[in-house]
């Protein structure tokens, strides 16, 4: 039966080529626009560490002065000052915990005549790699003792290892960074969470390659490497001694493996802040402990423009669907006579309805195929846009399948009204008229 409907539908679509082409084209444009923007939206609101994100939390506290504070409404600061970050780390309340800041490392290649260059670097503490599941190609991370001892060592990314050591195992070798010789203890496999969640608010970009150099925080500070972003909450006597200045420049992450651990940590954090208030260091008691995805939402990693584009694309699709409804309806009413004959020969309403839905479905599938082409074109356009995430905009399997879901749903929704009108048509008057 279905094959018969298919044949009928194809024949009817062929009879009116221009109208069919119009419907398919309009639907395809709407689908193409929707899939393009949804791909970007999905890319931007994606989970950078799917296997771990539910266990990673970002504690926030607020060392600002009392003025302007509204209890329950003022949000705590995004970054943390050095003493607080160290106090939280040393409490060891999570499975893992690390503090981090971004910086620029001046790398001096050993080769003669090679020019020095700048690389994105992270100054952090020992747990960083285990907590974020950063995979090692060679060697491993450093220990808490190395942190305290300001050990002259470094972990580098695979791409930097390729550039400097042609991809060979460089563990134990020395790299010159900011005029200091540092021993390489680990080389990472390609690792670049998208977005680079730990860099939010630390002054770095969110997308693209991962960081090239990872150094122990104390070591980097001893080498006078400074953070990319510093926010001061009181008058600063000496900006160079960031460890003691009233300035926030570190992001702290904790790994908490269970709901109970999260509740415990929040209690601990509140307690810590109350203790600081009692000591006279703090005036505000607001704290926050968001998980990774919650933190990204609060940081609004998805730009307004992208949301706006997605909304626009949906509006576009809606208009295309209305357009398709109109054209399908036009086609179906024109075939009143044919429907009358089929009804008179014994076709039930259900059968007529199915026949017209099959026809709509075919329009949808054709629109989907063409829409896929438009989406690929759209994504090609996105990749040529100036945004950081541009090069990541590709159609994956899910979006590929979703295109056809959207196409079928759109066309079937568009087909309901015409198919309904077709099946409730009384056969007798049509036969008479014909």
């Amino acid at each position, binding site marked *: 039966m279905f094959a018969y409907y298919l044949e009928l539908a194809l024949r009817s679509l062929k009879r009116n080529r221009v109208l069919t082409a119009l419907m398919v084209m309009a639907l395809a444009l709407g689908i193409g626009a929707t899939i393009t923007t949804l791909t970007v939206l999905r890319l931007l609101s994606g989970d950078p560490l799917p296997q771990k994100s539910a266990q990673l939390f970002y504690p926030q506290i607020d060392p600002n002065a009392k003025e302007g504070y509204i209890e329950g409404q003022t949000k705590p600061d995004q970054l943390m000052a050095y003493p607080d970050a160290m106090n939280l780390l040393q409490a060891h309340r999570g499975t893992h915990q690390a503090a981090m800041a971004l910086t620029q490392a001046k790398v001096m290649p050993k080769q003669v005549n090679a020019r020095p260059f700048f690389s994105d670097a992270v100054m952090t503490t020992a747990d960083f790699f285990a907590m974020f599941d950063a995979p090692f190609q060679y060697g491993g991370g450093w220990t808490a003792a190395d942190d305290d001892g300001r050990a002259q060592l470094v972990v580098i990314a695979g791409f930097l290892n390729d550039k400097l050591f042609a991809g060979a195992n460089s563990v134990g070798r020395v790299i010159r960074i900011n005029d200091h010789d540092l021993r390489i203890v680990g080389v990472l496999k390609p690792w670049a969470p998208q977005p680079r969640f730990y860099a939010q608010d630390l002054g770095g970009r969110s997308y693209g390659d991962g960081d090239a150099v990872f150094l122990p925080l104390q070591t980097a500070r001893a080498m006078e490497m400074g953070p990319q972003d510093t926010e001061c909450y009181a008058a600063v006597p000496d900006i160079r001694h960031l460890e003691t200045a009233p300035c926030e420049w570190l992001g702290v992450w904790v790994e908490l493996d269970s709901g109970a651990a999260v509740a415990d940590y929040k209690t601990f954090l509140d307690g810590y802040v109350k203790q600081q208030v009692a000591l006279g260091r703090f005036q505000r008691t607001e704290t926050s402990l968001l998980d990774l995805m919650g933190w990204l939402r609060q940081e609004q990693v998805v730009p307004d423009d992208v949301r706006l584009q997605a909304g626009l694309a949906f509006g576009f699709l809606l*208009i295309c669907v209305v357009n398709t409804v109109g054209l399908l309806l036009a086609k179906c009413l024109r075939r009143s006579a044919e429907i009358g004959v089929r009804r008179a020969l014994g076709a039930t309403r259900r059968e007529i309805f199915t026949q017209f839905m099959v026809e709509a479905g075919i329009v949808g599938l054709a629109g989907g195929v063409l829409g896929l082409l438009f989406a690929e074109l759209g994504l090609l356009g996105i990749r040529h846009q100036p945004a950081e995430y541009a090069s990541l905009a590709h159609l994956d399997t899910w979006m590929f399948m979703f295109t056809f879901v959207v196409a079928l749903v759109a066309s079937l929704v568009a087909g309901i009204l015409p198919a309904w009108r077709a099946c409730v048509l009384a056969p007798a008057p049509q036969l008479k008229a014909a």
Partner: protein
Amino acid sequence: MDILPILSTLRRHKVTAFLVILEIALTCAIVCNAVFLISQRLERMQMFSGVAEHELIQIQAVSIGKQNDAAARAQEDLIRLRQIPGVTGAALVNQVPFTNSSWNTSVKLGPNQKQATLNATQYFGENLLQTFGTRLVAGRYFNADEYLDFEAVQRDQKLQAKVGVIVITQALGERLWPGQSALGKTIYLGETSVRVIGVVAGLIRPALFNGDASAQWSMAFPLRMNVSNANRYVLRAAPNDRDRVIAGAVAALRKADPHRVIIEKKTLDEIRSGFFQNDRAMAGLLVGVCIALLVVTALGIVGLGSFWVAQRRRQIGVRRALGATRRNILNYFQTENFLLATIGIALGMVLAYGINLFLMLHYELPRLPAVYFPIGAIVLWLIGQVAVLGPAMRAAAVPPVVATRSV
């Protein structure tokens, strides 16, 4: 033209008529808002910077290794840069417009004020304003003897109090002291106070993270930078000389210190164009969507119009046989389309206003100016008429003899 028969026909084709109206309404609503968004982006791209944009070049050069004679190195660099033929000014500064990297501080109007009035950006560098080419509207620029070394000030708290004077923008002055002259007024920054000695017409902030409303809140300080605390060399040259000057400057800087990394060498025009590239891309995309929408709507009207004409062939034939002229038939379909478009546009206006309210709530957009409504209406009327012309002409071509054939 008789409207009543048209209305009665439409009443018998409610669904089809409704679909046309709906499509026109949705298109009208989206296109009005999209065009408004485009105009907002274009306007933003015209943002006033206050500097001699077509004459400026930025070269970012970072030295490797510890600089023991950073101040001397900076002075030598600047002398070398000024010697390049075509260079009319050179300065070593902490920040440059449109580079998205800025130094900011909170500003207070009194010594005991607890909460800052606003946050403004700080431009440091000897001869910065003269090199940038800002326009002085009141007071004066800094005298040579007013400059202090930034490094010394940073190291010694007592020197901070000696900075003493600043130049601010007109917009910042107006914001701090509405309706008054900013000249001679005092502002408080952290522990120190400074007096305004000059006002410039404009000087845009390097980054607009705090929103476009505060784009002009800038202050310039008489502080001298050196190569250990600043790396942005700004050169001024005639527009045609810029490419040559860039090449000469890179060579001169490398000659002065071979261990330098030149991070960036661009004209301010290029930097500005990069700064607004997202706006440009968005505006382009919106234009594309608008055109696609209007085309789809027009094609929809053509499709439905053709169907309608085909369905009423007999009716048209009868009318022609009863004496209606071709023009009457043409007018009939044109009027019908005009009626549908008018209802659609009216609905679309309401919808456009609703979408605008939603955007105002979520994306900090201003209210849709009323002028968009008549323009949107005219555009959609025109498109409707153009789209229906084909089917209407086909209808007018129906011969009266059709009436006699099929009945």
